[in-house]
């Protein structure tokens, strides 16, 4: 019970086509995530990465196809144990750090005492001790995203959806948070869909990388990342990392419309 290690859920996308009105954004996407797997998703801007992530969270409904979390179809509502970390943090500006982190617990009706205790543990884990009573606008971007991450972890998620979570941070803060995320995955496996514009980040984090392309988009290649796990930043110096980075880079870039 005191070991938070858990397997995460199996997430299946089968033949998922997403639409906005009559416009088709993704075309029959098939993906299957194993328990605890990290899948990086890359692709040009506007190819439907966010749309897909939102569908897994039950925020958008697929026009056709089905998404299942541990075999249960996602039908218009957020499945239990699916958490999301937003690019722009999505914190309540009128709530303190503590209240933001406790939010999923409060909403869930967790007993006050337990919620307080768990929140304290999370605050400590993301290194925000001393800032419990600060408001988001009093924090740096990095600290705001730590808060967002702690909030997402508060529910012991089976599935973590991350939409360019470090996209709004400066390079240095970004690296620090990358470290910490690797640490997190090393201690507790959570099935993760990680959307990023950074190819390095996709390779560093992913067990596999899905490259999306086209209008409507489909998965043009699903790449296995055979780098040792638990992942450490030292892998970035290996030839295999460089090879994968070049490979993904070529796939993503070949897909930009020539100017």
């Amino acid at each position: 019970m005191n070991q938070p290690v858990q397997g995460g859920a199996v997430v299946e996308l089968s033949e998922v086509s997403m639409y906005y009105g009559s416009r088709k954004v993704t075309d029959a996407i098939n993906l299957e995530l194993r328990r605890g797997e990290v899948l990086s998703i890359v692709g040009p801007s506007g190819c439907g990465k966010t749309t897909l992530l939102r569908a897994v969270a039950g925020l958008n409904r697929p026009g056709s196809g089905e998404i299942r979390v541990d075999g249960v179809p996602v039908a218009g509502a957020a499945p239990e144990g699916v958490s999301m970390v937003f690019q722009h943090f999505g914190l309540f500006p009128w709530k303190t750090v503590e209240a933001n982190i406790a939010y999923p617990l409060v909403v869930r009706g967790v007993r006050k005492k337990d919620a307080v205790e768990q929140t304290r543990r999370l605050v400590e884990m993301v290194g925000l001790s001393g800032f419990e009573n600060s408001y988001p606008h009093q924090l740096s971007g990095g600290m705001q995203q730590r808060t967002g991450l702690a909030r997402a972890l508060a529910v012991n998620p089976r599935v973590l959806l991350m939409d360019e979570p470090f996209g709004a941070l400066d390079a240095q803060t970004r690296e620090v948070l990358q470290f910490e995320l690797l640490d997190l995955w090393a201690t507790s496996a959570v099935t993760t869909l990680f959307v990023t514009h950074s190819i390095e980040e996709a390779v560093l984090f992913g067990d596999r990388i899905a490259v999306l392309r086209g209008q409507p988009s489909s998965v043009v290649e699903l790449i296995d990342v055979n780098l040792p796990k638990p992942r450490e930043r030292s892998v970035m110096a290996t030839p295999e990392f460089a090879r994968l980075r070049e490979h993904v880079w070529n796939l993503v870039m070949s897909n930009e419309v020539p100017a």
Partner: protein
Amino acid sequence: MTQNHSSAARARRYFASGPGHPVVLGAVGLGIGLVVWQIAGSAEPVLLSTPGRAWNAFIELVVSGKLFTALGESGVIFLIGLAIAIVVGVGYGILVTRARLLREGTQWLVYALQAVPMVAVAPIVLIVMGFGVGAKSFVVFASAVFPILINTMEGARHAPPELLDTAHIFRSSERRIWRDLLIPHTVPYAMTGIRQGIAMAFVGTLVAEFFLNATGIGGLMLSASSRFDISTVLALTVLSAVIAVSLMGLGRLLESRFSSWRGEEGR
């Protein structure tokens, strides 16, 4: 360039404290007004009173106790009407943004009703509802509710989508969405509406009191003016203006208080 800069700064400092301060300017304006009024009133004593006579009329109202009775009567309908306008305006304003059918079904009505001048329909309302406190409070309510409702709708409509997503992902109930998101987000907008609503409620109070069974400050004003007691009318007018200005100040204070989390240092 530097020269310009420092002289601009000096000018700003000058206006910030010295004779340019708003309170000082206001007092000077008031003083000039009183002098002009006194001179004009002395020249045309039948149509215009003077500040001196208005002051005497005011003292008389205080001494006879009439003023306090009237203030009490006005205060009751003002507060009842305003309170209901706040509850209905904020509640319905948020509700309508959450329920598409309700919004599309009633939005045109809100905008149409808003344009109806209260002075014109108040007699009808009073005839239909009787001339009691209820009917008068209703006139106050109807005067004040629209700015509150419209500002609240505007605020609730712009609730941050990312926060709504957050609420849905963590499977929040609708009740908690109101509590965690819609109400705190909307309060600063609603306060702007409430500030305007306070002013409208004040006008509504006088309007409600002007017809038939005249009561309160409005009633005093009405009976004085039918007796051609210009001094009393003027005294009451000035009193109304003072009350109105204080209420506006109170409204502004409330407004800035309730948007404090936006500020530099939160609460």
